[in-house]
């Protein structure tokens, strides 16, 4: 039980840390952080709204 709670706490900790990091990084940037998996050219614009 305690190990499962530990796993839950770890997952929450990682998620909060990652989102904090994202907020920190994107707050000081003009563009979006794009993962760019693969080797194809990056599109010039973000996904358009429907």
């Amino acid at each position, binding site marked *: 039980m305690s190990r499962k709670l530990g796993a839950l706490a770890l997952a929450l900790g990682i998620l909060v840390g990652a989102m904090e990091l994202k907020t920190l990084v994107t707050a000081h940037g003009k563009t979006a952080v794009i993962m760019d998996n693969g080797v*194809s050219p990056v599109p010039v*614009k973000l996904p358009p709204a429907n």
Partner: protein
Amino acid sequence: MPSGIALVIWIVGMGAGVCFVTCSVIRTSFLRYFFLNLYIILSLFSDLLRQFVLRFYGLESAQYTYAYYYTDCLLTVALFVAVISLASRIFAELNMTRHVRLVAVLLLLGTVGFSYAVVAQSAHRLVTVFAFELSQNLYFVGLVLTYLLWGAILKLQESRTRVVQMVLSLGLYFSAYAGSFALANLAPKYVIVQYLGPILGCFLPISWALTIMRHSEDSRLTTARLVAVPR
């Protein structure tokens, strides 16, 4: 139409991906590193699809943008699973594989929920922006997870060369994207910036292919070489 440089980068990346999968099969490591191979195979198919759409519709088309970001989201999830598979291998000796899987599922569900909460406020953008938001959030989760994994490798004195080098490659890969993001903000006018993403995309298959080619599963690193500060 893609430029000559973009085409060269694409060919090098595809070649490296094929090389990694082939080496894994030849050295009977395909199933042992199945999720890493799965990520590279999905990456190869995604790049083929993107190239097809790019040639038909062009770089500025909505079709290419959709194809790029939806495949990118799929690949980021696959990379997340690959990171978790490496974590499972590292923590297997402590009989914590089940807990690693539990953390992975919770993290994935949490990230999906968070991404949905961000884009749900504007329902008309849900379909298009959700994939992009999820990809972006999973990137940061992967980044934090990889650094935690590196800490665990040092703490547990993991010595399997392949595992150590694959986690190090992932750490460099994630960090390099952070660097390219900084460069894109500092010097957006330079042409090289637009090629940074695809160049970095070649890094992971090349480094993993070199690891599989140069080291066997029995290869070990001494822990003293992993720690920078002598004790």
